[in-house]
C-alpha cells in the first residue's frame, strides 16, 4: 500500500475517492479557477447592490436579489466546497436540507397569509385592555 504519495489530479474521474488502494485521492482545484470564481462572486455582489438602485417593482427586485444570491451560493458550493467533484451524497445532504427549509417556509407563509386577518383583529381588540 502506497501512502504519502503526492495527490493525483483526478479530473477525469470526478468521483473523488477511489477505494482501490485506500489512499486519499482528491481533486485539487487550481488557483486560477478559485480566483476566477472569486472574481465572479465580486461582480455579482456589486451587481446585486447596483440592482437595488433600479426600480423593477417590489416582486421583481426581490426575485432578482434572490436569484443572484442563489447563483453566488451555487458557485460557493460547487467550487469552494468542492461539491462538483465530491461524493454525490454530500450534495444530496445539502439539497435535502434546502428542500425541508423550503417546505417549512412555504407552508408557514401560506398559512399565516390565510389567518393573518385574525391576528389583526386580535391586535386591535387587545389594545383597549393593554393600554399603559
Amino acid at each position, binding site marked *: 500500500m502506497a501512502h504519502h504519495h503526492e495527490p493525483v489530479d483526478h479530473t477525469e474521474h470526478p468521483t473523488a475517492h477511489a477505494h482501490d488502494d485506500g489512499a486519499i485521492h482528491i481533486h485539487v482545484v487550481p488557483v486560477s479557477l478559485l480566483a476566477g470564481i472569486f472574481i465572479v462572486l465580486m461582480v455579482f455582489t456589486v451587481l446585486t447592490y447596483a440592482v437595488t438602485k433600479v426600480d423593477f417593482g417590489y416582486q421583481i427586485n426581490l426575485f432578482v436579489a434572490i436569484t443572484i444570491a442563489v447563483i453566488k451560493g451555487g458557485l460557493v458550493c460547487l467550487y469552494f466546497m468542492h461539491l462538483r467533484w465530491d461524493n454525490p451524497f454530500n450534495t444530496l445532504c445539502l439539497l435535502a436540507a434546502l428542500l425541508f427549509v423550503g*417546505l*417549512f417556509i412555504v*407552508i408557514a407563509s*401560506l*398559512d399565516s397569509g390565510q*389567518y393573518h386577518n385574525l391576528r389583526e383583529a386580535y*391586535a386591535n381588540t387587545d389594545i383597549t385592555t393593554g393600554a399603559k
Partner: protein
Amino acid sequence: MSSIATPISKHGHGNEPAADNYLTHGRGILSWALTIDHKRIGLMYMVFVLLSFFIGGIFAVLLRTELLGPGALFIPKDEVATWRLYNHFFTLHGAVMVFMFIIPAIPAILGNFVLPLMLGAKDVAFPKLNLLSFYIYVLGAAFMLYVLVGGTLSVATGGKINLPGGFGLDTGWTFYTPYSTTASKSGVVAATMGAFILGFSSILTGLNFIASIHMLRPKGMNWFRMPLFLWAIYSTALIQVLATPVLAITLLLLTAERTLRIGIFDPNLGGDPVLYQHFFWFYSHPAVYIMILPGFGVISELITTFSRRHVFGYQFIAISSVAIALLGFLVWGHHMFTSGQSDLTSAIFSLITFSVAIPSAVKVFNWMATLKGGSIHLNTPMIYALCFIGLFTIGGLTGLPLATIASDIPLHDTYFVVAHFHYVMVGSMVFAFLGGLYYWWPKMFGKMFNDNVGRVGAIILFVGFNVTFLSQFIMGSLGMPRRYASYPPEFQIYHVISTLGAYTLSIGLFIAAGNLLHALLWGRKAPANPWGSNTLEWHTTSPPPHDNFAVQPSVGDPYDMHNWVKKSDEEGYVLDPDAPEPTSPGHGTSVAH
C-alpha cells in the same frame, strides 16, 4: 456438533468464558467515563435514560392519583395550590418522558449498543462524538433536574425557597406561547435550555448513525442486506438530523422572547403565537416518529427471530421506514386544527396525515404475514412484540379520527388524544423498548433472564396499560378535556379505573426491571446466540469483546436462520452449515441483492 468449522467456532459458542470482554476491558470509573466504546456508552445512556423514565413515571403516578377524585386530593385546604401542582405534574411528566426518555431510549441505548455489532464494525463512525453526545445529554438533563429540584423545593418549603429562574414547569411540554413567554412563573428558560441541549445530543447521535450506516457496512452488506433495525435507525437518524435543528432555533427564539421580549411569538408585541406552533410541530411531529420508528425496527427483528422464519416483505418493511420518516415531515399541521391555522392548510395536512397510515399498515401486515406459518416461540421478547402489534394497531387507527378535521374538532384536547398517543408512545414504543431490552440483554451482559417472570411481567403490563388507556378513550369521547385536575363527578368512575390501571402498569414495569436486574446479578450464563437469529451481533460472544469480533463474521442474508440449530438451553443455537434447507417456502428466502 461442537466441532463444526465456522468462522466463529473458537469464540462463538459462549460456553467457554471469553478471556476479555468489553465489560472487563479496563476497570475503574474513568475507564467508563472516558470510554469511546459504543457498547459502554450505550450502557451509560441506559442508566440515565432509565432514571429519567423512573422520574417521569413518578409524575405519571402522582397525576393519576390526584385524578382519583374530582376535588383537590393533595392539598384539600387549598384547591388553587393543588391545581397549580397538577399543572407541574403533567408538564414534567411530559417533558421528562419525551425529551429525556422516549427520544433517546431506543436509538441511544439499543442503537448505540447494537448498530456497530449489526454492521460487523468495531465502533460507530465518530466514537468521540458519541461520547460527547452522551455528556451533552447529561448536561441537558442537569438543566431539567434543576427545574425539578427547584419545583420540589418550592413545594416542600411552601414557596419559601425558590431557586433563581426555575421552580417547576407548568406550561405543558409543548411550551405554547404566549403563556410560556409571558404569563408562566415557572422555570421556562431553564427547561427550554435543557430541551435545547438535549436536542444537540439527539442530533449528534443521528449524525453518527447516518455516517456509520453509509460508510461502515462490511463488504457484502448492501443496503438491502441490512437488518431492518438498521433501516429503522437510519430513518430515525434522518429525522433527528433534519428536524431537531428547528427545535433548537425555536427554543432559542422562545428564550429570547421570554428574556428580551423580542416579539416574534407574543401577540401583545406584534408576534404570532400560531407561528410558534408551526415552529414547534415542525420538529415535534417528526419527533413522534423518532419515538416510534426505532420501535418498528426492534419489532421486525423480534417477530422474525421468534417465528423462526424469514421476515416477510423485507423490502416493503425497509422502504416503509424511510417513507414514514419523510411523510412525517409533511403532517405537522394536524396538531393545529383548532389553534387558528387556516382551513386550507388544515385540509392539506389532514390529507397527508391519512397517507401515513399506508406505510404503517404495510409494516403491520408484513409482521402478520411473517407470523403466519412460523414456528412461534413465546419467549419474553416475543410477548412484548405481539402486544406491540395489537397496541400499535389501536394507537394507529385511533389516529385517523384525529386526522379527520370534522371529528378532531370535538375530540381535540380531550382524553381521546391522550389515549391515542399513549397507545403509540407507551403501548408501542415502551413495549418495543422492553422487548428489545430483553432480547439483547443476554448479549449486553452475557446473562439469561427468567423467561416465566418476564412473561408474567409483560402480561401484567399489557393488562394494566389497556385498563389505563381504554377508559381514557371512553371518557375522551364523552368530552373529558385533558390537562384538567378537576372534573364533573360523572367522570370519576373512568378516572378511578384509569388510575388503578396505571398502578397495575407500574407493577408490570417493576417486575420487568426486577427480572432484568436479577438476571444481571444472578442470571445463568448466556450463550452467544440464545435466540438463533442470524444478524451479526449474534455471531460474537456474549458479552462481546472490546473490539466486537474476534473473527470477522461473513455477511449473508440477515434473516436466513436455517443454519442455526438449537443445541441446548445452555449452549443456545450453533451454526450448522449442513442443516437442511427448510421446505416451507417462507424459510430461507433470500432478500434482494
